[in-house]
């Protein structure tokens, strides 16, 4: 393995006060390594130390086997470049002039650009798709455009390694993805190693070749995202309590109220929008009968106070049905999410009839005709929109009936 940066038993911090200790890192050519951790966990301190801007409290960082604090600044600038969170904007500097500053470690004392320098600058701007912006004033660009230009500027230094501190914060989802794509491309095509910190856990798990989890002044885990992302590790990393992160899908769900006002018959992803809509209104929800390999299961698990679930790929057992019936009898009303009906979940159709028989108000998101076909003459109200069904259900929830 071709090591670019390495450190063993590194402790970082300010003025001898350790912020994070016991850092072991080995960054190979073309790797994208991501630091994850809560705000204030010390990610920036780690990155600043790795880049040689900050002296380690103990241990040392090696770049190409040399101690980063002992490499001459100018030599280091040809191997390592930075993209920082702050975007200082000299008001009259064009994109091209800004990117050209990256040639500083190569040019003469007046910073005159040779033809080769100009080619390198054009290429770097093209890499991030910023070439069309080159005559624009940097300060007038959008945040996303600015960030791409700053990456180009880093590339102009022709580094082996780029260290980026939260390159995607403040960006919209389109630009977040673009930035990550650019970094992946640089790593894969130009074999530039990227070490960065991110707040977008889902992006990090999907795009980086290695992740380091920073928690409580230590590296909680380090390795390939597939190996790290066990259930619950992210909740623990960030100390999330009233929500839950699903490593498989990369989605965050907020916990709902701990009561049972509405029962939702769901499956196949149809229940999730309803669950979110009702949870937002402060409604307590139960849900059933959901197979444990269903997308709805992931969201229901967090949002609902109770879920009647069945093992993956099994026909619904009588036991689960009675569990669901119990939830229905406790709830004030029932909503049919319009779930697809197949052999394994035929029992769910029966639940609607059961609810109606108990005299519970029943709402459905299916068309009237389909309702008639599936549920016969069961009394129910049919809705087109999730929000309308949710609003109707809220009328039956106790806090609105006072």
């Amino acid at each position, binding site marked *: 393995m071709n090591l670019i940066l390495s450190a063993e038993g590194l402790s970082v911090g300010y003025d001898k006060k350790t912020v994070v200790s016991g850092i072991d890192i080995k960054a190979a050519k073309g790797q994208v390594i991501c630091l994850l951790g809560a705000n204030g966990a010390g990610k920036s301190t780690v990155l600043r130390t790795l880049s040689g801007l900050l002296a380690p409290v103990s241990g040392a960082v090696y770049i190409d086997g040399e101690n980063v604090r002992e490499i001459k600044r100018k030599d280091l*600038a040809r191997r390592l470049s*930075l993209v*920082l969170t702050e975007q200082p904007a*000299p*008001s*009259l500097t064009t994109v091209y*002039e800004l990117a050209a500053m990256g040639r*500083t*470690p190569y040019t003469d004392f007046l910073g005159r650009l040779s033809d080769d320098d100009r080619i390198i600058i054009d290429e770097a701007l093209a890499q991030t798709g910023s070439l069309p912006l080159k005559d624009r004033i940097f300060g007038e660009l959008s945040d996303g455009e600015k960030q791409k230009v700053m990456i180009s500027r880093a590339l102009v230094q022709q580094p082996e390694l780029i260290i980026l501190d939260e390159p995607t914060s403040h960006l919209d989802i389109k630009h977040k993805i673009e930035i990550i794509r650019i970094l992946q491309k640089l790593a894969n095509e130009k074999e530039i190693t990227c070490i960065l910190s991110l707040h977008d856990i889902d992006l990090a798990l999907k795009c980086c070749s290695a992740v380091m989890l920073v928690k409580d002044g230590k590296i909680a885990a380090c390795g390939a995202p597939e190996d790290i992302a066990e259930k619950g590790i992210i909740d623990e990393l960030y100390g999330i309590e009233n929500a839950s992160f699903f490593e498989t899908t990369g989605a965050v769900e907020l916990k709902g109220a701990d009561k049972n006002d509405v029962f939702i018959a769901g499956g196949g992803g149809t229940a999730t929008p309803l669950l979110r809509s009702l949870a937002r209104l402060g409604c307590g929800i139960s849900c059933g009968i959901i197979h444990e390999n269903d997308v709805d299961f992931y969201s229901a698990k967090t949002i609902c106070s109770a879920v009647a679930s069945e093992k993956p790929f099994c026909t619904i057992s009588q036991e689960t049905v009675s569990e669901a019936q119990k939830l229905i009898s406790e709830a004030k009303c029932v909503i049919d999410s319009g779930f697809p009906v197949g052999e394994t979940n035929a029992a769910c159709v029966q639940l609607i009839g059961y609810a109606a028989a108990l005299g519970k108000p029943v709402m459905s998101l299916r068309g009237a005709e389909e309702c008639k076909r599936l549920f016969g003459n069961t009394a129910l109200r049919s809705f087109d929109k999730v929000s309308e069904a949710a609003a109707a259900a809220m009328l039956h929830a106790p806090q609105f009936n006072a």
Partner: protein
Amino acid sequence: MRKGFDMSKNKRALFLFLLGIGVLIIIFMLNIALGSVNISVSEILGCFFAPENVSRAHRSIIMNIRLPRTLAAIMGGACLSASGVLLQIFFSNPIVEPYILGISSGSTLFLAMVILGGYTFGFASIGAFGMFLGSFLGAMLVMLLVIFAAQKVRSVTTLLIIGLMFGYICSAGTSLLTVLADRDRIAGFTIWTMGSFSGFTWEQVGILYMVAIPFLFLSFIISKPLNTMLLGEKYAQSMGISIRSFRFLMVLISSVLTAIVTAFAGCVSFVGLAVPHIVRTIYKTSDNRVVIPAACIYGGVMAGLCDMAARLVLSPTELPLGAVTSIIGAPVVIYLLTRKKGGSL
């Protein structure tokens, strides 16, 4: 149009440099020609090429009074403007300059101690170089205090207020010294503290030029690392700048440039602030390789103009130079502060 962008920018810069030099020459001539006695241009030129054709009185006015004064004003303006550029980048704050940060006042205080203290201890007079050293010590001291304060505050406006307070403290010290000192011996000292290029001796002009030229040249030499500083210290460092020694260099150069002017001309306010901004605006660039030489030229123009105005507006009464430069410079500060971003470099 796109393709020619770079080209037209260079052309614009070249044109503005030539224009600036042209205006500077005109101001230079006018400053010598105009005054209580008007002297013709042919007499001025005659002074250098055929001195025997010029009347003795006029020659004396030119050679002993107006020429050293004009030379001093032009170079003084250049020094203050270059110092302003450096300080603005050092503090990454568009609204600082030697006077606002209290550096000029610190200079004045130390100079007052040297001069007035010198009288008290029986020295008949202090040499021009001694005056420069005293003023340099004062400038450095206040500079270091302001840097220390700047590390505690990040706000543009707070730093400004701290600088003003340092300025007040130093001015108060100077006033105290003035009151305590022998009245007869400080004639003119008070006027001098308000800034004036009058009464420059050839010895002082000599020292001003000997110190200023190498340091102005130095400030031009460091214009490339100064450009990287526009992105902040961390970026500058990551592009290969040794930040510690570079910071020291910036402090040294700006202190020397401020001190050399203050030593002989007192506190000349706002030139160091207004000129860099005017230059950036008309040249449409933040590139210090252009801004620094341009600030020197237009700094000379502005100081020359202000000095001329100070002499001529209420002639024969001479206005304090500081009053004239403030009338021009202070509105620039207000404009920058009221703009949405608080101005930028």
